[in-house]
């Protein structure tokens, strides 16, 4: 068997196993089209622990399932938080869930952000749009174990100021002196005193030692590619850059074939990939 990389796999319940009913404890409107759901298993059952970067298949009865990253704290007991953006019928139904409602959960699935790779290194986190929710669990872990890591630089870009998710939490993070949080938007009006432009334009202001840095990227594919290229140009090795890929998912166990990205099943060999393992596939159009 050829191949210069081997993808680590992960597994969870196949689609022949039905989702488990979870109760919606709380919903928080993040932006006009994004809501965070707080889910707890019904009947006091335990929710399987997850690792930052993983996702669940969330189920809206009568509508279908969608792969949504877990956006809460792995140490938060007994449930999951998911930040859902309305993008289709299933996400619309999920976003309309109300406290007391029921959402089905199947998972968790996928490969996690490799926290251990960042020990004793500077950490650069770049998130675009809905790329921040899959990174938030990682940030919680990094902050909880803060002394193990070097500098912590975050860059978060959204479309407009009102599309920034976790806005209140971001203000709180910005007051900390053990991390640096830059936000930028694509366009803004007069009431925005922050930066306007791409996340990559914020990199020159980030302070990190490239040869001793690990980067975690999540957002639209073009954004991740450009950010990775900018980091490489700064001297960050391609083995130290990680990104979270996205593809159409149905089964979440590497069986239905929909999420294939080159040789990898994004649901099972990803969604978190090391940049050097996938750089050649990112360069191929319509792969």
């Amino acid at each position, binding site marked *: 068997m050829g191949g210069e990389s081997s993808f680590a796999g992960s597994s969870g319940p196949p689609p022949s196993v039905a989702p488990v009913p979870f109760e919606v404890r709380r919903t928080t409107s993040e932006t006009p089209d994004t809501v965070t759901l707080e889910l707890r298993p019904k009947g006091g059952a335990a929710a399987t622990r997850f690792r930052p970067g993983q996702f669940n298949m969330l189920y809206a009865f009568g509508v279908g399932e969608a792969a949504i990253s877990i956006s809460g704290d792995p140490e938060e007991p007994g449930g999951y938080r998911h930040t859902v953006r309305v993008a289709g019928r299933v996400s619309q139904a999920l976003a309309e869930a109300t406290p007391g409602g029921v959402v089905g959960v199947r998972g968790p699935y996928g490969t996690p952000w490799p926290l251990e790779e960042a020990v004793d290194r500077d950490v650069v986190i770049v998130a675009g749009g809905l790329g921040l929710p899959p990174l938030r669990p990682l940030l919680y872990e990094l902050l909880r174990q803060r002394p193990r890591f070097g500098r912590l630089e975050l860059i978060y870009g959204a479309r407009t100021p009102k599309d920034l998710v976790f806005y209140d939490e971001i203000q709180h993070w910005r007051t900390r002196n053990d991390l640096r949080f830059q936000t930028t938007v694509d366009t803004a009006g007069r009431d925005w*005193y922050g930066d306007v432009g791409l996340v990559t334009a914020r990199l020159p202001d980030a302070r990190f030692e490239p040869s001793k840095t690990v980067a975690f990227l999540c957002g639209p594919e073009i954004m991740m590619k450009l950010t990775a290229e900018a980091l490489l140009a700064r001297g960050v090795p391609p083995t130290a850059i990680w990104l979270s890929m996205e593809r159409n998912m149905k089964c979440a166990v590497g069986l239905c074939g929909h999420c294939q990205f080159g040789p990898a099943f994004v649901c099972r060999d990803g969604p978190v990939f090391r940049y050097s393992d996938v750089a050649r596939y990112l360069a191929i159009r319509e792969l």
Partner: protein
Amino acid sequence: MNENDSTATELRLADHRFFRGLDPEFLARLGERSYTRTFDPGALIVREGDPADEFLALFAGKVALEIIVPDRPRTTVQTLGPGDVLGWSWLFPPHRWRVDARAVKPTRAVGLAAGHLRSLLDGRPADGYVFLLRLLPVIAQRLENTRVQLLDLHGR
């Protein structure tokens, strides 16, 4: 709002990312007609359509590039900060600014008078070429960034 302060301007230009490493004698000539400018938050730095009579090197603060469309609120399409430069329309006719630029934070910049800059570059083509080779990547990067912003990746 404007202060003219020509003390130690050369040194300051040399500290700026855009000018760093240029031939010292050329840098000195560049600095001959340079001056410091300071802007309060909200101040309009340049107005679209006005004569583009200077090249600005930003040292501190934040500047928003704004586009005004009649039926829409004022929109910022880009912000610039320390280490960035503002303006290339001074280099070719009709020598008019193409955007509004407004200070968002207290901003300090060094300005170079456009007329002096043009005749200096005309008279020293080799240095002029070097100068353009620094300016063009700035323009190219802005263009690439704008293209990506245009894709509205975070939109629907």
